[in-house]
């Protein structure tokens, strides 16, 4: 029976554009949770396995993976139209463009308030220390990157209790600004809070949050879309407009927060910062084997260089990091920067600092029932004695083991393996016609016809 529990149904922000997809299997092989299969010549994402990390998006040679976003027109349903901007957004632009020009461009697009996402990092840091004192489990794992939280839920279910259930800056800031606008006379229902997102994972987390929370964020606007709009605006506006940000509270800790080591530097005990989803998978394996020793805190991010490497970032991630580090060091000397008392003003939202339970959702289990799982396991192992172990992907599954699992789960057949299919035909156990049909089911019926409109062929870009 299908599971209708809202906590086991997941919103995903990554989509396969069926017209553009050529079924090339690149995405299928990089996926860390084996969430992709090819059917009818197109990639298909299995919803409960996907963690929205965006590896498939990065690797797709024909840009067939897209990230959903809310319609910009949606902002005009609200009187106060707030755009929440993370520091990395500013870091994408040349240092010659002052942040104030970028903010005025955002107002030109239609936003009435520009707020910074990382204003609440000092409050989040306070919540971190409180959490560390109250919970004995180690290492604690940051809940900042939603792709990692989901990766742990599905691939490392034994580590869900290590996730530090603290609300990240985006949610705390959104709550704070909502309160502020309320205080200035704008009711919550007339306020639209829009988040400029660097990635699909953040969208998914806002649309279906973990930890028993509901997001106050109204919608998301993808950063690459905003980036293009702003570049155009800057190109066409000669007069330098100087629009200040609505409430400038950003300090050096906030500027660096979403970059690699942005959280880990604040831990006074051993803390590791790991970026890139493969590296994270490796370190989580070690945590499970209890191999890290006395590490207190793990900052884990799906993207290389942290959010500067988010899939919706346009600027070169290394330059973004360089600019933000420079900006942070300019801030770092000032008195306000050191003044942690700033967080007093967040007193109203502080109670929302902690998240509820995060449930494990083991995607590898062969069955809920142990005895059935044992039977399926035995079948799978027997099947592996026959599958050739090439992991070629021609069956539409990422590797032989996954095909074997799909077979025992009734989602595929042994004849999907091209090599075994060949054997079956040779032994007259399968007709040529039937074999051809099976291949078409996986690869579609146009796939083996001549087509010069593909990468490396005569009409490559035509």
């Amino acid at each position: 029976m299908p599971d209708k529990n809202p906590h086991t149904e997941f919103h995903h922000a990554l989509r396969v554009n069926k017209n553009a997809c050529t079924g090339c299997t690149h995405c299928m092989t990089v996926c860390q949770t084996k969430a992709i299969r090819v059917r009818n010549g197109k990639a298909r994402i299995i919803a409960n396995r996907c963690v929205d990390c965006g590896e498939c998006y990065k690797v797709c040679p024909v840009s067939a993976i897209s990230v959903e976003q809310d319609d910009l027109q949606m902002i005009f349903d609200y009187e106060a139209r707030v755009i929440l901007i993370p520091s990395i957004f500013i870091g994408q632009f040349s240092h010659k463009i002052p942040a104030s020009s970028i903010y005025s461009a955002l107002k030109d697009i239609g936003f009435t308030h520009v707020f910074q996402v990382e204003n609440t990092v000092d409050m989040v840091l306070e919540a971190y220390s409180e959490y560390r004192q109250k919970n004995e489990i180690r290492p604690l794992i940051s809940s900042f990157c939603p792709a990692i939280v989901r990766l742990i839920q599905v691939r490392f279910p034994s580590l869900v209790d290590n996730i530090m259930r603290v609300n990240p800056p985006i949610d705390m800031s959104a709550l704070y600004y909502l309160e502020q606008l309320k205080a200035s006379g704008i009711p919550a229902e007339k306020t639209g809070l829009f988040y400029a997102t660097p990635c699909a994972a953040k969208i998914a987390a806002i649309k279906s949050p973990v930890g028993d929370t509901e997001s106050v964020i109204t919608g998301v606007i993808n950063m690459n879309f905003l980036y293009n709009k702003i570049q155009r605006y800057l190109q066409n506006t000669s007069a330098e407009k100087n629009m200040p940000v609505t409430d400038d509270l950003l300090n050096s800790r906030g500027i660096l927060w979403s970059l690699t080591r942005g959280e880990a530097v604040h831990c006074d005990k051993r803390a590791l910062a790991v970026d890139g989803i493969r590296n994270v998978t490796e370190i989580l394996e070690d945590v499970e084997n209890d191999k890290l020793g006395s590490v207190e805190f793990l900052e884990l991010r799906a993207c290389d260089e942290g959010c500067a490497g988010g899939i919706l970032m346009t600027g070169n991630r290394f330059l973004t990091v360089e600019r933000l580090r420079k900006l942070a060091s300019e801030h770092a000397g000032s008195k306000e920067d050191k003044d942690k008392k700033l967080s007093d003003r967040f007193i109203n939202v502080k109670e929302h600092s902690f998240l509820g339970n995060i449930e494990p959702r083991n995607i590898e289990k062969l069955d809920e029932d142990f005895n059935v799982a044992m039977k399926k396991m035995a079948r799978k192992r027997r099947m592996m004695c026959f599958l050739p172990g090439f992991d070629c992907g021609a069956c539409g599954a990422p590797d032989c083991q996954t095909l074997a699992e799909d077979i025992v789960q009734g989602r595929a057949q042994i004849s999907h393996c091209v090599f075994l299919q060949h054997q079956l035909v040779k032994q007259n156990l399968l007709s040529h016609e039937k074999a051809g049909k099976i291949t078409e089911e996986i690869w579609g019926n146009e796939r083996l016809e001549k087509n010069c409109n593909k990468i490396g062929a005569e009409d490559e870009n035509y």
Partner: protein
Amino acid sequence: MQYRFKIAGGDFSNAGTVASSVKKILRQLNINHTVSKRIVIALYEAEVNVVAHAYSGLVEIDIDSEKLRAYIADKGPGIPDIPKAMEEGFSTASPQVREMGFGAGMGLSNMKRNCDILNITSEPGTGTNVEMITYFKPDAR
């Protein structure tokens, strides 16, 4: 259901592969993660002991509906005084091994803590046999 694995002595870069494979098996069988965590930690320590102290080893894993039994048999120097070796902090690890972060003398006690039944037998000069049993239901011993 039975699984078998080989362990090569001295090969630290591969230490942990048996524990990782078993971990995956336990996830596939939907074993409660508190229990599987214990099994994996104990198995990892046993595996590293073969890598660090012996020449080669064989692991047998038997799973039935109530328990997992791991049997690790190695060819190696053996343990002359088992009760002594079980003491926390006792280690004969070489300085090189310590440099790699092993050799705190905590492995055997960690194994004892993380399984329900631990039997170690050893013939000095020949090898060591370790048997560990963990029940899936915490109160089923």
